[in-house]
């Protein structure tokens, strides 16, 4: 069946070996249940991504100025900050 370790990595979920084994079992039975979809003939059927048709809705690409208070609050929400910046681990 599928490689749960790989899926967990794609999902960015740090899971214990024990949980991976459990999820493997649970997902297997859930995907078995999905097999019933094989019975449905969908040739010539268009996929639906939204319940009703909407044209793309666009707006001008302009930044809205926010109050310094709002900016400060957003920065404050971040777990690690420096001055007015959100701190991230080095990636190189």
């Amino acid at each position, binding site marked *: 069946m599928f490689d749960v370790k790989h*899926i967990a990595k794609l999902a960015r*979920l740090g899971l214990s070996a024990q949980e991976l084994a459990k999820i493997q079992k649970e997902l297997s039975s859930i995907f078995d249940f999905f097999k019933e979809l094989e019975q449905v003939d*969908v040739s010539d059927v268009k996929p639906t991504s939204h319940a009703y048709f909407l044209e793309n809705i666009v707006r001008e690409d302009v930044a809205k100025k926010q109050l310094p208070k709002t900016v400060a609050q957003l920065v404050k929400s*971040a777990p*690690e900050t420096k001055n007015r910046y959100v701190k991230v681990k080095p990636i190189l």
Partner: protein
Amino acid sequence: MNLTTLTITQTHQGLKDKKFSALELANAYLDKIKQSDKDIFAYLHVTEKLAIEQAKKIDDLIFKNEKLPLLAGIPCAIKDNILIKGEQSTAGSKILENYIAPYDAGVIKKLNKQGSVFLGKTNLDEFAMGSSTENSAFGPTKNPCDLERVPGGSSGGSAAAVAADECAFALGSDTGGSVRLPASFCGVVGLKPSYGAVSRNGLIAFASSLDQIGPITKTVEDAKIVFNAIRGRDEMDSTSVEINPASAKTTAWQSKIQNLRIGVPKEYFVKGINPEVEKTIRSAIKQYEKMGAKIKEISLPHTKYALAVYYIISPSEASANLARFDGIKYGYSESKNQDNLLDVYLQTRGKGFGKEVRRRIMLGIYALSAGYYDAYYLKAQKVRTRIIEDFNKAFQDIDVIMAPVSPTTAFKLGEKVDDPITMYLSDIFTISVNLAGLPALSLPCGKVDNLPVGLQLIGNVFEEEKILDIARELEYRV
């Protein structure tokens, strides 16, 4: 006078006639919460300071004899995945335990315009993923009708708060039945509006093509009042649309019930439904027949595939929506305990998300992953089209569909937590409606062993007013 048992209309009249003040009203509800919520745990967070502040403002308006909107001073409860600026918004998750909302959701802006009073934020299954409220990271809500049973989910806190008179009305969100199922289990009214009828801005996203915010209330009239207050286009949600306002006055549907064509889908009365629940639903439909409606058995042949379609599409969308919780921008973080970025992601998400959310993210990522996309996600999207076609065809010959909300009444706490598929089956009669974007309402229509049963009225797209008016005709008789 017991203020906490009044409907919205009665409360509004009382405020206008100065029988009580908005502050007295807010305090009556806050006292009720203090007294009964220890046992029920509908609220994650009571916003007492905010409520009192808002109530005093309304009393000023009353003092100045200014015109009061219908929801002015009316105390309400908000599901904790809907943002109220400056207040905690956890979505029932540890990953947002200390998160303070930086802005108001679209629906909150609309309620603020009317002057509603916010009593607090209600419990839910983590990120609205669940059917019992047992998946909340902060503990389950109990059903006020029987404390050993679940209130349904995911908006279990909102439905329980309304049923226990801990608020005059509440807002929930419905992705696969999360307003209707708890409304049915707790014996209150719940409306899931058509997709696009209500702005999703400021609703913490679960599955964006299915999510809708809806009212949970004590009466159908109240549901209509709240729906009219929150519906409409919002520039912050490009999928929201303006629909014709539902008329404030209730049309005399009595005469229209004469010729009303009610469709009863045979696929909704199958093995596994509690026979007493079926009897209660059928006798409710019979009441409409007595009022002159024509009952017609219909078929929605793709119903049996809806559950599989839903459990592919909703986790797929969720896995993308929940990618934003990374331990960097806000919320729970393992940043201080880890040395490299990947470990920050892995540990934050592994520890911050609960079991069901982790399971659904895994499910969604797998369904979307290379090599499986066509077999699962694309296939599900195509079967979704088939489900929509079923409804379109049915609505050519009928005006409204009636069915149960759930195959059973409220089940016991702990009864289904270890078996995901059995738990997923609780939503079997509600999810097709989300896949098709239709409006549907849960109306209390009787009891089985003292537990409420909800009749589901499903309308064609944007026909909220019609199903509300039809529901009212039965409400008078139950």
